[in-house]
Every structure is written in C-alpha cells, then in structure tokens.
C-alpha cells in the first residue's frame, strides 16, 4: 500500500468515524439516560437524507435544504419521543426492541409511500464537487473533506455543550446516575426530550452527509445503525467520550479492513474487533455506569 493510498484511506476512515459518531452520540446518550434501546435510530438517518433531497431541490440551495432537513428530522424525533417512547421507559429491553422494530417498519413504509421505491438523488452543489490538492499529487474529493470538517466541528460543539454548559451537566448527570440526578432536582424527562431531539437531528445530519456518497433509499439506515451500535458497545454504553474514540477506531478499522483484506473477511472484521473488545471488557472501553 502506497503512502498516498494510506493517507487517502486514513481520511476516509476518519470521515466514516465522524459520521458514525454523529449516529452513536444520540444512541448512547438515549440509552445512558433513559435506559432505552432505540433500534429505530437508523430511521432518522434515512429520514434526514430523504427530506434533504426534497428540500435541496425545492430551495435550490444546498445549505438551506440541509438546515431545513436537520430541523425537520429533530422534530420527527421529538414527536416520536413525546408520542410513544415516553410511555415505555420503564418497560423491559425486549419491549423496547419490539416497539422500535415496529417503528422501523412504519418509517420504511411511510418513506416508500412519500418518495416511492426508486432511490432518489441528493445532488452535490458545484462548489463542493471538485477535488482538493492536500499535498502535491494527493487529491481528495472536496465533498468528503467538507463532511469530515463539518463532522469534527459538530463533534467539538457537542463536546463543549456537554462538558461546559448547564444543560450538558444535566445530561452527564442523567447518564451516569438517573435516580440521583432526579433527586437533586434535574428535570430528567425534559433533558431527555432535548437529547432525543438533538440525537435524532444528528442522525439526520449523518444521513444527509452520506446521501450524495451512497444511494438515498429505503433501508439505508440499517447497516449504519448496526455500525453505530457496535461503536456504542465498544465505547461503553452511555459514554460520550467512549463513543467518540470508538467511532474513530471503528471507522479506521472498517475502512482499512475493506481495502486490505478479501471482501468476505473485510466486511466482518469490525464485528470480530468488537467481539475481541467485549471478550476482554464485557461493558466496553469506557462504561458510564462503571
């Protein structure tokens, strides 16, 4: 493997990692605070991409379309939380699994009803469609680089919000010890609604960013959901920091696995990696409930 290819694949790996982090951040905090297993998180990814494809064409402006789509996905998420999930927190994990799988069926079918069965396109604007010369002779797609930078900026903003604001402090308190946070007067349900909305919006953003690279189609969220779950489990459920580190690890391991190994092993390597981590530490690398 040449140094140029290695650099390119490293960037691809980080880009995938950042995207997985946007997915996993919502998942892990939702589980950490409310003990809720949300398998329908991949649906927000899909909804984001589909809504963006409509609004980018409608407004004729990529950024405006993306912003509208992120907001709409957040609203969809909060509607699901207030309308349904709010009532099942105290149920068993099995019930969570069943209800959120039911939601996947509903989201998939609603998407088919609204947008049809044919994949839709999410065009990249002209100013993002070229290549950037990172080093002499090393060209990298502008769009992918933009995704990487935006992703890192969002992750950084999220980190600052969680570690340096009052709401962020409530989120951390809720995630590490909910009964104690409640006893100390934190309005955990309200905090949770905020987290769920932001988590859904971030998943939507991840879907939008992936939209021009992969096909925008029904079921696009499921493979990513599984990778995000792997990230959450490796990082330690409920741990924000763990999710970030695990996301980068998974992104890089997955990207290099697919390039270096034969395809059968390449697509499995990430799961073997997870099994190895869990065999060593059954609650992940940075468990929030340690």
């Amino acid at each position, binding site marked *: 493997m040449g140094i140029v290819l290695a650099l390119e694949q490293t960037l691809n790996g980080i880009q995938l990692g950042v995207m997985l982090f946007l997915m996993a951040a919502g998942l892990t905090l939702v589980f950490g605070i409310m003990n809720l297993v949300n398998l329908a998180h991949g649906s927000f990814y899909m909804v984001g991409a589909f809504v963006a494809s409509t609004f980018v064409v409608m407004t004729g402006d990529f950024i405006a379309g993306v912003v509208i789509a992120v907001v709409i996905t957040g609203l969809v998420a909060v509607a699901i939380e207030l309308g349904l999930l709010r009532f099942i927190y105290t149920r068993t994990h099995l019930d969570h699994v069943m209800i959120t799988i039911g939601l996947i*069926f509903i989201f998939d*079918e609603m998407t088919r009803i609204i947008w049809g069965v044919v994949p839709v396109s999410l065009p990249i604007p002209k100013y993002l469609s070229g290549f950037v010369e990172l080093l002499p002779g090393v060209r990298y797609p502008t769009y992918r680089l933009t995704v990487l930078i935006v992703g890192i900026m969002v992750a950084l903003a999220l980190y600052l919000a969680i570690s340096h604001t009052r709401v962020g402090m409530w989120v951390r308190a809720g995630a590490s010890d909910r009964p104690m946070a409640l006893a100390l007067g934190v309005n955990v349900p309200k905090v949770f609604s905020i987290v769920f909305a932001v988590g859904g919006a971030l998943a939507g953003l991840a879907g939008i960013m992936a939209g021009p690279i992969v096909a925008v189609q029904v079921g696009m969220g499921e493979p990513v959901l599984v990778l995000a779950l792997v990230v959450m489990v490796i990082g330690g459920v409920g741990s924000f920091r763990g999710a970030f580190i695990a996301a980068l690890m998974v992104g890089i391991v997955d990207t290099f696995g697919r390039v270096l190994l034969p395809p059968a092993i390449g697509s499995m390597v990430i799961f073997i990696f997870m099994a190895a981590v*869990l065999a060593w530490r059954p609650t992940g690398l940075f468990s929030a409930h340690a």
Partner: protein
Amino acid sequence: MHDPRSIKLPAMPGRFVLDRLPAFIIVGLLALVPPVCLALEDPFFIRVFMRAINLGIAAAALNLILGFGGLVSLMHAAFMGIAGYVVGVLAHHELNGDALNIAGLSIPGTGNLLVSIPLALVVVAVLSLVTGAICVRTKGIYFIMITLAFNQMLYYLAVAAEPYGGQDGLQLLSDLHFGGVPLPAQVGFFYICLAALVVVLVLLDLIVKSRFGMVLIALRQNETRAAALGVNAYPYQLAAFVISGVLAGLGGALFAVGQKFVSPADLAWLRSGDLAIIAVLGGIAMVWGPILGAVVWVMLELVFSAWTIHWLLLIGVFIILVTLFLNEGLAELWKRLIFAIGRRNRG
C-alpha cells in the same frame, strides 16, 4: 418491576393437560391443513402453513433463552440461515459433482438430508458455542447488541459467498432425498415439518420442566439470588444458548428445504427481530406460545398484504399495539380463561 409471569395460577387437577391443551389444538389444526387445502384445491396454503411451522420451530427455540432465560438474542435468524446454507451448499456441490474444500477437508456434496441436516446442526452447534461463549459473558443491552452484531457478521458472510450466489442467494436444485427415499411432495414434507415441530415442543417442554430449566428460569428472575444459592450462571446460559441455536437451526434447515431456496435476506437482523416478535406475540411464558405466534404472524402477513401493498406499515402498527397492550401475548388470553374457570370451580 411487576412481573406478570409471577401471577400464580390456581392449582387444580388436570393442570398438566390444561397448560398444554392449546399446543394439542394448534398441532391438530395444522395437521388438518393439507387435507382441507387439497379438498378446496388450493395448495397455496400448504406452503403458507409450512412456513408457519418452520418459523414456529425457530421462534419456540429462541423462546427457550428469550422467555425462560431472559436473554434477548437477535441472532437466531443467522442460526436459521446458516443451517439452510449448509444444506444448500452440500446440495449445490452434489449437483456440480464436485467437493467442498474447507480447512484441508474435502467434503463430497450430498442431497441426502439425513446427512446434510445433522451436519447443519453440528455446524450451528459449533457456531452457537463460539459466539455464545462471548455473548453470554455480557448482560442486558450488551447481550442484545452483541448478538445483533454477530447476526450482521454472518449476514455479510452470506453476501460475500459469491460461489453460492452472493446477494442473490442459492437455489436448492439438486434432487433432495432421505437416505435414498426421495423427498416427498409438498404434503409429505409438510408432515415431516409438523413431526419436527412436535419433537421440538416435547423436547423444550422436558427441558423447561427439568432441573436445568428451573435453574435457567431462576437466573432470569434473580441472578444474584441464584448465585447466592451456589449457581454459576455461565454454563447454564451457554448450554441453553447452544440448545436454542441448534433447534433454531433445525427450523432453518427445514425452512430452506421447504422453500428450495436460501439467501442472505434470510439472515437479515430484522428477521431475528421477527422471530422475537413472533415469540412475544404468541406468548413467551408458554413453550407453545411461539407456535401460536407463528401461525397468527403468517396469517397477518397474508391478510395485510392482500389488503394493501403498504402492509408493512400495518405490521409495524400491529407490533407496537401488541407490545403496548398485550404484554403476555395471545397465550395470556388462554391463561385468563383457565384462571376464570379455576375461580368459578372453587367459588
């Protein structure tokens, strides 16, 4: 948390029969399906209920660890699919007249199900032992997630199996037979599946009522207390995981033979979710619950899909409603009935 399973049924004579009566009724009704279908000249429904039987076997197998063991596994579709692939791959090699070369071994292809189905179960036993050894160490959500990840890993393995059709799947074109006796026509195979179902139900019933089963249930109810009584959870839960996987594999092998087809779609993780839903729909507190769930599930698919092309939407709504309002599944209705009868008899 209140556990509805802890409600005590009134003691009364005939509990043994009464608890199992629905199982006899379901199996009896299923046995009537082929003659009725043939009389109505509509063999389509034989296929539909064969599917219900095989899904029911897998869901009942899953329920050993789900309902009785309290372990929510999302990898049982993979056990089904891998068993199906073992049967399919061996048949494929027989058709090609070559051998399967793996790990230095050269295995001749065969369409003899008396060889390929047991071999499929051995493969699934090894697979479930290896994956279970890691999964069972984890608890709660980690167990759900790690089984889901293993399911997805095996799914990608099936997708990457290009010699066996890759994404498109593998048709079982070879002449399948039982040690020389050709595979019977649809009706005959229906009864073979039904016989397998009865064997699985009896086996599960014996396991659940055995000391092993009692320990498994105790571990679900309170692992700490069981540990205080000197029970080491790991070997029990691992053994249950393997038994459950192997029996699901039996359902999967019959499923593949019944459809004459196996594909990666059979291993999708949402399929594992379907199995869990089938079990819960029927009722996870009873050994026969998942069979009832499977029968109702295929009938729902039929009714909804005849009604609208967007039937998955209805399935989704239905799953949510059942989970919200019928927590103990359809078996709960049976339990309430016995309860009412018992109270009337005493009062």
